[in-house]
């Protein structure tokens, strides 16, 4: 309670009323700074990498739930993997064979679809983002995880969580590493579906 109040006060101090403009400015500064490494290159990939990096930097710089308003509701409410991709504005990722760069650990057969343990581990350099999609779920997008790439502490590209699967489905992991997108899938058979109990 006191901790929350304290952080609220801190937020108040560090963010005067001119909040929107200030944040906008910061974003504008961040883009060229990040794009600086390959400024002459106008390739789309670099642009996407730079803007994603700038976005992440802006997000990570802001305290607490500053990103709250920006959760991509369209992506989470999308009802097919294709529309998830569309809502996120993701380019077509490079398909990797299972275990090559991205490994999805999950049971081959899950008795209870309401609670399926999943682990995603990535052996690609500079992983910035990991997304997980259950292709046959009513709402396929499960998580969209952003890792701070240049934090003093290195986040290992590994994520463990438990998900619901409505029926037997392919799990698809999408990884953004060094600005590029990669994907792989893994089939999970579900005996009792976990999305619509009753």
């Amino acid at each position, binding site marked *: 309670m006191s901790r929350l109040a304290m952080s609220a006060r801190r937020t108040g101090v560090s963010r005067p009323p001119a909040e929107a403009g200030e944040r906008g400015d910061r974003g504008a500064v961040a883009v060229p700074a990040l794009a600086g490494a390959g400024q002459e290159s106008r390739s789309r990939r670099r642009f996407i990498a730079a803007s994603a990096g700038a976005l992440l930097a802006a997000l990570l710089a802001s305290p607490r739930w500053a990103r709250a308003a920006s959760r991509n509701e369209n992506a989470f409410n999308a009802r097919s993997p294709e529309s998830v991709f569309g809502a996120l504005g993701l380019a077509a990722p490079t398909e990797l064979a299972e275990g090559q760069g991205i490994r999805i650990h999950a049971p081959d057969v899950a008795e209870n679809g309401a609670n*399926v343990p999943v682990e995603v581990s990535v052996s690609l350099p500079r992983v910035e983002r990991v997304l997980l999609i259950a292709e046959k779920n009513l709402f396929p997008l*499960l998580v969209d995880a952003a*890792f701070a790439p240049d*934090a003093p502490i290195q986040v290992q590209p*590994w994520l*463990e969580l*438990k998900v619901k699967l409505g029926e037997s489905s392919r799990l698809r992991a999408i990884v953004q590493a060094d600005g590029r997108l990669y994907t792989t899938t893994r089939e999970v058979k579900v005996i009792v579906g976990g999305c619509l109990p009753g």
Partner: protein
Amino acid sequence: MSQNSSYPIRLRASLEGDALVVKTLFSHPMENGLAKDEAGRLIAARYITQVQLQLNGQTVIQVETGSGVAKDPLFGWRLKGAKAGDTVRVGWRDNRGDENWAETVVRPTP
């Protein structure tokens, strides 16, 4: 934005070799709004939309979550370069604006 202590958080951060393994267990119904109660009425959606992990006050991982994450969700992450004495803080926020945070200090390996 209330702190909802009725849904507690279990947080463990332990050094394993050069990695800090952080595991969290959030108590949360993760209702996707599609399930019905005994009377056949829809149970209102209530699910975590965001999870954050901060190390020494700096956000290092931010996860946006959908209603397809299991009830009482478990998350695990690994950080390299963390050391004993560092502060790990984990929090969630749900679609109703409730949130909860937990904090722990990394202990040296015995």
